[in-house]
């Protein structure tokens, strides 16, 4: 049940990384005020349906610098595999209002395309504009510094990824759902098994998922603690079958595992 609620929340949040605009701030410009009202109508329909897209068109026609309508009109394209169309619209939103949209564009480069270079470029560009904390992805799953770390990891720079995550976790106000898991996997890949286990243990109190025990099993294997290796694999499988896993309705997450991964490792453990 909890997994279903989280899934529904992610579907909603990925679609709307921020809420509808406050139209009152456009009252001094009649056309942009009307454009804002059109955007409000657009988002009252299901995302992507013709009427919604038409209201965004009308909004843009009334006020060609109304960035929100470009951004929001683009979202269903990204979610449905039409990335060229998304890019044309989000670029326009970024051109008008980079402070508001660079981070979202960077997140989408990562989230929908695994385009790590482009994601880092946008997050860094946003960092030059935004003073202070750059904040979280629209779905709230990652702080954008953590997202950048994951991009570096996928580009093969694990050291930089660890440095960024450690630095971010040192911030007392930081909260992340899977940060310690990713850090643990990074240490595991460096064969620093005790650091990996320490980090994976911390992950349990943030989001207690099957992946923790799968990767902990691999760390135990590295330490030649074979009983704990097997016990953690069993726990990983038990959690998996109860659907206590990393999960996202849109895509495979970084470090997400599947039942076949656990079962293959169990076969190795039984040899």
């Amino acid at each position, binding site marked *: 049940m909890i997994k279903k609620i989280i899934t529904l929340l992610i579907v909603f949040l990925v679609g709307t990384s921020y809420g509808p605009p406050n139209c009152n701030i456009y009252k001094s410009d009649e056309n942009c005020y009307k454009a804002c009202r059109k955007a409000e109508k657009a988002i009252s329909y299901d995302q992507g*349906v013709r009427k919604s897209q038409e209201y965004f068109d009308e909004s843009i026609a009334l006020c060609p610098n109304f960035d929100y309508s470009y951004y929001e009109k683009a979202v269903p*394209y990204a979610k449905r595999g039409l990335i060229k169309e998304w890019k044309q619209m989000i670029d326009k939103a970024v051109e008008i209002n980079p402070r508001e949209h660079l981070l979202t564009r960077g997140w989408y480069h990562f989230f929908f395309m695994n385009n790590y270079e482009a994601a880092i470029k946008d997050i860094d560009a946003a960092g030059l504009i935004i003073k202070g904390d750059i904040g979280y992805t629209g779905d709230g799953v990652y702080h954008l510094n953590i997202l950048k770390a994951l991009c570096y990891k996928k580009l093969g720079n694990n050291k930089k990824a660890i440095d960024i995550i450690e630095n971010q976790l040192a911030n007392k106000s930081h909260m992340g759902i899977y940060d310690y898991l990713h850090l643990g996997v990074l240490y595991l890949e460096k064969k620093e098994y005790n650091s990996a286990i320490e980090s994976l243990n911390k992950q349990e109190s943030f989001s207690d998922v099957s992946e923790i025990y799968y990767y902990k099993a691999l760390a135990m294997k590295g330490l030649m603690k074979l009983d704990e290796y097997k016990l953690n694999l069993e726990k990983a499988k038990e959690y998996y079958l109860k659907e206590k896993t990393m999960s996202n309705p849109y895509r495979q997450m970084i470090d997400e595992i599947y039942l076949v991964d656990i079962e293959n490792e169990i076969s190795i453990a039984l040899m």
Partner: protein
Amino acid sequence: MLKQIKYSPFIILILLISCKNTSDKQSTHLANVGIIPKDESVDDPNFQPCHEDYSLFYYQVDNSDHLYKGEKPAIVKTFDDIKLPAIDQNDGYVTIRFLVNCKAETGRFRVEQVDFEYKDKEFEGELVTQLLEKTKQLDGWLPATREGYKCDYYKYLTFKIIDNQIVDILP
């Protein structure tokens, strides 16, 4: 045909919106972003959606993380067979969109090819043909359910390509 979807208020609302919108001939937009209308010149005539006017997207269904037997690793494994020569700078993304009907049959395949800036491009060689053929051969799709009833859904696979080699499969 509609036997498999009961008339929940949510579904009736969607159908009403769809009926109203399809009457507007002037619009440049499809009834919904990402739907794939039938094209008799390219589509398999034997493939039929269960509900022509009602389909969801893969992330909207109740079993969004269980839509293929063996999950994503089984899909990835299918494409491991593809062996292609390295072609310098044959880079970018190939996206194949398609419809899975309530019987888990697939059809209406559409291909988009873009570079890393997401601009149109045409990949060299046999890559796209092979990706499309393999995608059509995938036979482990599972019916999607929404509120307990089977429905049609749109799905896509995006292949990240560097030097003519598959380096990633999304989503």
